[in-house]
């Protein structure tokens, strides 16, 4: 079981050692990161194999839960830990002139993210979340332009205040229950958190962590940060970091805050995010910001999907989140050479047809054209939303549907621009770097494979959703079958 800690510890260790050893190792250091990530992937795979899908818990420091701090490893956690490593590997800054410090930050981010996925109590989550934040600040500012620093500063302030709110929320929970262990909280929640205080705590944590998850209204940092950071970092932020924040919120919601009010709060914020994100993207005039706003809208959709009560919601949310996790990084990577106003991009697709084709593929999946995976995600969401009685859910379904129309419009306005015949004053379009295009192609292949394997994937996701929604399983796994609750 030490493998679990290894998953978190290995990247962290490498991250701290790398800057020190950099001088000694020289150019070798740039291989350390990928190797660590690869090891991580193998570790998680073997773990998954060994556990055969059954969840298990791990207490750190020798204290039995609920006293100590613990890890909880189920399929969802493993899946996200795996995705963290894979995505980090794909989006690794391979460029030769990369500052070695960036490698360290990347590894730090990976370690923190894995830790966040696996953590079983609020304290751990908080610590890893902060680590993740610090790593992301560093990465975002790594281009070292004035705009990047300014954007990072603004991001940091919002994020910092978000942390304050999340902490306040945690404090509220603690006041009510006297514990921070998720399993223990889950047993206490029905009696002690199903009230206004609990709801407030949830709202505070939602908003605090939501800063990372691009939740409306605390996502104003998104367009400027994504526009100033390097595309790989933007891809990582939009694809991965946001999803991990969502994961935490979902864990909390399933285990501690299953009240309908909490769900509807999240739903309302999600709907607002969809609406504002997609409409802003419709108005956006350059590719990167269009993607940023679109990302806000998509994250809104993720929240909307997760706010459907019960297993259907987890399934739908998981589908939307995983899909976005694949598609948005790919689009950001394509933006590496296509950053700029639409006018600049006329005919760019004719220069690099592969890139343009991939763009079309991802855009089609993003708007949910069957049989691409995006469609199934959207279908699950809509069917789930319409299955609810509360009118807010129906409103949400309508908003999601209308937003899709806007989404099609802006994505393909851009897509067609790529194929426009070039004017005489043609821009010089640099072709995509081979590594970018290769990564995106791999992602495209993954997308298409997912399309063909959608039936078995669906079953697998169903089991994950089953497991995630099973509160009893969580409690008994962490606290023991007898129920170690004091």
């Amino acid at each position, binding site marked *: 079981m030490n493998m679990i800690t290894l998953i978190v510890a290995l990247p962290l260790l490498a991250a701290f050692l790398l800057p020190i050893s950099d001088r000694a190792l020289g150019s070798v250091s740039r291989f350390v990161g990928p190797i660590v990530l690869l090891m991580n992937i193998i570790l998680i795979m073997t773990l998954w194999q060994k556990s055969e899908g059954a969840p298990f818990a791990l207490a750190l420091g020798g204290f039995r839960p609920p006293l100590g701090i613990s890890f909880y490893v189920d399929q969802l956690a493993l899946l996200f830990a795996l995705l963290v490593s894979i995505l980090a590997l794909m989006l690794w800054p391979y460029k030769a002139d990369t500052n070695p410090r960036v490698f360290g930050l990347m590894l730090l981010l990976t370690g923190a993210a894995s830790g966040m996925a696996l953590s079983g109590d609020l304290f751990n989550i908080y610590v890893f979340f902060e680590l993740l934040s610090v790593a992301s600040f560093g990465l975002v500012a790594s281009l070292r332009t004035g705009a990047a620093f300014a954007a990072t500063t603004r991001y940091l302030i*919002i994020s910092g*205040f*978000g942390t304050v*709110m999340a902490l*306040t929320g945690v404090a*509220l929970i603690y006041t009510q229950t006297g514990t921070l262990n998720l399993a223990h909280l889950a047993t206490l929640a029905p009696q002690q958190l199903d009230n*206004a*205080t609990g*709801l*407030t705590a949830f*709202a*505070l944590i939602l*908003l605090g962590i939501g800063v990372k998850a691009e939740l409306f*209204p*605390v*996502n*104003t*940092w*998104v367009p400027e940060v994504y526009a100033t950071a390097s595309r790989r970092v933007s891809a990582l932020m939009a694809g991965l970091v946001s999803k991990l924040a969502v994961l935490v919120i979902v864990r909390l919601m399933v285990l501690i805050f299953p009240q309908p009010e909490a769900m509807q709060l999240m739903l309302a914020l999600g709907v607002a995010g969809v*609406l*504002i*994100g997609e*409409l*802003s993207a*419709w*108005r*956006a005039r350059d590719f990167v910001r269009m993607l940023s*706003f679109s990302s806000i809208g998509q994250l809104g959709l993720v929240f909307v999907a997760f706010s459907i009560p019960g297993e259907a919601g987890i399934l739908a949310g998981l589908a939307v989140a995983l899909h976005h996790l694949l598609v948005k990084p790919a689009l950001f990577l394509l933006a590496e050479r296509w950053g700029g106003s639409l006018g600049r991009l006329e005919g760019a697709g004719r220069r690099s047809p592969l890139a343009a084709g991939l763009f079309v593929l991802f855009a*089609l999946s993003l*708007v949910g*054209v*069957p*049989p691409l995976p995006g*469609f*199934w995600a*959207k*279908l*699950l969401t*809509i*069917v789930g*939303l*319409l*299955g609810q009685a509360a009118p807010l859910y129906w409103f949400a*379904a*309508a908003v999601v*549907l209308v937003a*899709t*129309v*806007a989404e*099609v*419009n802006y994505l*393909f*306005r851009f897509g*067609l621009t790529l*194929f*426009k015949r070039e004017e005489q004053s043609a821009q010089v379009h640099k072709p995509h770097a081979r590594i970018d295009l290769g990564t995106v192609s791999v992602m495209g292949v993954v997308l298409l494979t997912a399309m063909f394997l*959608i*039936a078995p994937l*669906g079953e697998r996701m*169903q089991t994950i959703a089953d497991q995630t929604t099973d509160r009893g399983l969580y409690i008994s796994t962490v606290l023991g079958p007898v129920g170690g609750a004091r």
Partner: protein
Amino acid sequence: MTLLDGLILLALISVLVTMLGYRLPVIGWLTSALFAGQLLVLFLMSGLGYGGDTIHSSVALSIFGQPLSWRFDALSWFFALITIGAALASSLFAAGEWGRQYRQNGGNPGLLQFSLALNVLTMLILLASGDLLALFIGWELVSWASFLLMAMAGGAAFSWAMRYITYATGGAMAILAGMGMVYQMTGSLQYADLMAVAGQLSQAQVVILSLLFGSGFAIKMGVLPFHLWQAGAYAETPGPGTAFLGSISSRMGLYGILVVLVQLIGLGRLIEIDISFTWLSLRDLLMWVAAITIILPTFTALRQNDARRLLAWHGVGQGGYMLLGIFSATALGSSGGLMHVFNHATYQAALFLSVYAVVHRTGTADLNKLGGLVTRMPLSFLVMLVGIIGLAGIPPMNGFVSKWLVYRSLLIEGMPLLFVASVIGTLGTILSVYKLIHNMFLGQLRAEHSEIREAPWSMMLPMLVLSLIVFITGFMPGLALDWVAAAQAAVGLPVLQHSLGGVEMEQGGLDMTWLVAVLFAGFGIGALLFYSTGKTRHVNQLDNYAGGHFLTADVRYHYSDHFYAGLMHRIGHWYRESFQWLESVLISLTGFVAQGASGFYRIVQPALLMLVVVVLALWVVR
């Protein structure tokens, strides 16, 4: 492996072949051959067209717990026949010289063939769908395949295709919402389950479902008020693509309506529902929408100066007849509506192809820049003549038969105003198609066109075959009515009792065989009268009564612009372009809201919002 699997596999192979071999010079012929092969497979399945059993696909999936299945019934077969036929004609048209010229002008004929093959594949998938989920998947595939075909020309086509896909996505989302509702009501997306509960649904549920599905599918058909995209988008598609789209693409919407509204929910439910404050039932309302769809686009077509656009607008209008017939829910009317799908496809394809034959030779479809081509392109003229007679619904072509069936059912049902509305549409059509043929083929031949030749045989062949079909199914409508009757049975509509010549009825039937025979006998006598007397002398077109002047080739002596000046004096100011206005208002409104939304990211300080939340939260906790 069933025949259906074979058909779809062959369509898939066509797509792959065209995708891989789009650079080959013979790709056009190859694609045509593949389409012909698909048609062959379809004929092997022709038992369906005569009431045979449904053919199921051996492929069945289950995704996220939703079973997906595919099958072909008589209705699917009927639509598939039209689809593949239209694709074959279009592909053949593009295969030879047209494709070569298109390549010279910087186009990519292989891409066109690929899009055609893709469209056919997606349409077959749609037609084969055996449950709502499969239907939706097919629907979206068809939408995006058409988008490819529309956008491939570039330039102005982009903005039209954009407009189309925006509308189409709106429609698809409406359908998705409808599906979600069905799922909520029945817990499944199977046809059978919806059919089973259709009788128990509340009126409100039926209304919402009909509106969602109905408007979703209607967008593809260009039914008012969703018609603005269609004419332009079709007209900007490269030649044969227009013919294909114009003849069948938008009818996929009709297929959807047939399946969901007619087969699953049942028109009987729609008739039961009264709309408050009117005498109309929901069904009547839909019929009125159809009638307005006949009239307004037809009179819009009347004002067009571009042959392609004129025809495309008629395509929108003719869809109204199909809907009108089908919503009448009678054996006569629905057979008229269904048969009109077939008829419209044949003559519309013939018309578009003949227009593109002219464009191929002269380089323009502008009705003010052509004229007198009948002497240079007599066969194309013949095709267009047959086509416009069909489009206008005048005997002896097939368009008359289907319209007759619709009129007759409206008469029996006692719907005078709808009857008048549909006749007004026909009259408008006659006016506008005469303008079309007059401005292109009749009148003065322009000096620069005096040397052009008839279109090459590779283009003539599909045109002639299509016009032959237009005539034969007009002469012997029973040939097509057999399929129509089988399709009616498949969707649960009353089945039309018909004969080879049409319909035998006590209270006034129709026997086209007799009528056409007599008509041609009459023409024969007329010809006899004409040719047996006095020898005629052919004169130059400029040897004309010109008020004592002598004409020369540089004198423009062709009445083409503002053709119906008198009519326009009367009705010209009725063209208010209200729908255009409505659409632009909608766009502006969205722009305004979007401006506000993106303004949020510039103005609002998020910490302010957080502060508000904190204060509120703590006030709650106290």
